[in-house]
Structure formats: structure tokens, C-alpha cells
């Protein structure tokens, strides 16, 4: 599948939700833990060698699961292949919790579901559609029942 590397690079330079030096280990057997600068930008996770300006790689954070791994780390796996995990080591439990929370919130699909959830709950409680004030109540992306016939 083609993609434009410059687009990805441009994205990696945008303001990050969170950035820190973490230990990182890839999903392949025998992967070694390496220090990486990890940067969360929108729904992408970039990781850099600590002294380089260009990321080594990028992970799309959709349909992924973030799990705590003892003692103060977490792993990211993707729904269609849950055994394949990217491991990260934090310097403290606090940092670990911070990252786990941010990664879970990073998914576009998660935000969309949350928005639809709040919209419906508010509508049930007030009888009014809160998205009307934003002028976006008709947008397809915020409708329920998103299953194909």
C-alpha cells in the first residue's frame, strides 16, 4: 500500500499530545529494548532514535489495545493480531498511566464513538441535539447506525 513519506514526516513534526524518551521493543521474537523518543501526534505514534530528526517509524493508533505490563510499562497490540505486541518501558507508574490514557484517547474512532455517545445521552436527557449549536448535526460521521446494509 502506497503512502507519501513526506506527509508522514510533516505529521511527525506537528505539536505532540505527549512526547518522552521511553524504552521500546518491537513485536518480533528476540527484539531488544531500545531507547527511543516516542511522540504522540493525533492518532499516530512516532518513534525516533534519540539524536535524529526523522522518525524511525510510525504506528497508526486505531483498533488497538493498550495493556499495562509489569512493572511500569505498557504494550500496544492491534485488534486483528492481539499476540503481536509493541512494548514500552516507562520510568514510573505515573508516566505509564499518563501514556496509557493518552494512547487510548488518541484513536479517531474512539473519539467519534464518544461524541456519538454524549450526543445521544444529552439528547435523551434534554430532548435537544447538542450538535445543532455547532451546526454539524447532519454530518454523516456523527450519525449512529453506521453499519452497511
Amino acid at each position, binding site marked *: 500500500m502506497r503512502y507519501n513519506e513526506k506527509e508522514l514526516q510533516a505529521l511527525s513534526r506537528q505539536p505532540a499530545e505527549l512526547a518522552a524518551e521511553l524504552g521500546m521493543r518491537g513485536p518480533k521474537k528476540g527484539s531488544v529494548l531500545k531507547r527511543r523518543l516516542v511522540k504522540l501526534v493525533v492518532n499516530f505514534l512516532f518513534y525516533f532514535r534519540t539524536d535524529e530528526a526523522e522518525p524511525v517509524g510510525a504506528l497508526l493508533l486505531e483498533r488497538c489495545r493498550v495493556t499495562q505490563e509489569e512493572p511500569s510499562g505498557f504494550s500496544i497490540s492491534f485488534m486483528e493480531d492481539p499476540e503481536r505486541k509493541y512494548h514500552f518501558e516507562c520510568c514510573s507508574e505515573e508516566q505509564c498511566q499518563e501514556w496509557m490514557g493518552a494512547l487510548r484517547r488518541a484513536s479517531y474512532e*474512539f473519539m467519534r464513538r464518544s461524541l456519538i455517545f454524549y450526543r445521544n445521552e*444529552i439528547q435523551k436527557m434534554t430532548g435537544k441535539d447538542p450538535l445543532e449549536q455547532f451546526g454539524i448535526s447532519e454530518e454523516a460521521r456523527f450519525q*449512529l447506525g453506521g453499519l452497511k446494509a
Partner: protein
Amino acid sequence: MKLHQKPVLSFFRGCRTQAPDREGILLKKGTRNTSYQRRWFILRGNLLFYLENQADHTPLGLILLENSQVEPRLGATEPYAFTILTPRAEGTGGRAYKLAAENQEELGAWLWALAGASWRRLVVLLPPLEARYRELCQAAGKEPSSPPEDCGFLATLSTPYSFQELHEHFGKEIRVLQMVRRRPQASPNGSRSQVEEEQELNSC
């Protein structure tokens, strides 16, 4: 830089039973071969995939829409033409994807859908809605609940996932989807039945 393809393909394939934000035929001007090619485009969130054919299992390509500009392109060889301009690292102008819709209506619909596609736009809408929800819950003396998790089954299933467990789960999901499709049209209070369906699906 390596974009890990498995997560992207997994996302692309995993969402195929769900309606995308928009999909349809668009003409895309090639880079080497500068003629327009018919492609099937699928917009999901801030990602725009294009396929050679609608039913393809793997997209031909992916366009990242975050911070891109979308504009109609007048004076193009094709009518209903527009450009997606994606940002470049050095800020010296981005990659311009030259596309064209098949008619005026499609052009309008695509421009509208693409304009609303950014993650950052969505992220500012959430906090006021969440706050309003919590405010209303507090006023009603109700315990606020959380939005549904990515996929209910992963929250309850313990690792490792055996084939048997996966097989049972997906079987259950398919049965619910079949049930949803067979259900007669919405009740008088349309939004309520939709919420019930959503809740049922999320409890899989």
C-alpha cells in the same frame, strides 16, 4: 521512516462492515502517467484510502488528511476537479493530489466530507460535550457512564486469545449483525431504537 502497514491494513479491513464517512469513485491524476484513473476512495476519520476496485482487500494507497487543504480546481481538464494539498515537512508547499468527481453533487459532497475530516477538529468538540453530559448527570443525581470501549470483547477476554475464543466471539458478533439487519424499520422514536442497537452491539 517506516509506516507499520499491519496496523493500517488491520484498521482498513476491520472497519469494512461499518459505513465509512464517505466512499465512491473519484478520478485521480497519476504522477508518472498523468492521465486520470478511476479509483474507489474510502474516507474514514482523517485517512483517505484509494483502491483499484471497490472490493479489493488491500488499498492501493493512503492519503493523510491531517492539516491538508481541499480546494476546487477551476480550469482543469476535467470538470468537477479538486485538489488535496498535504503539508510537506519543509513547509515549501505540499503534495497536490489532483482529483475529480463525476458530477457536481459528488464534488460538493466530497469537499464537505474532506473539510471535516481532521482529528484536531474532533478533539475540540469532545470536552464541551463531556462536560455538559456530566453536568446533566450531576443535576439528575445520576452516575455518569463511559463511552463504549473499542471492542467490548477485548476488555473481557484474557490473553492469550485462543482460536476457539476468537471464533466464538466473531460468531456472536455476526449473529448480532444479522439480527440488526433483519430488524424492521425504526420505531416512531427513531433515535431510541438506534441507541438500543448500538448498546447491543457494544455488549458483544
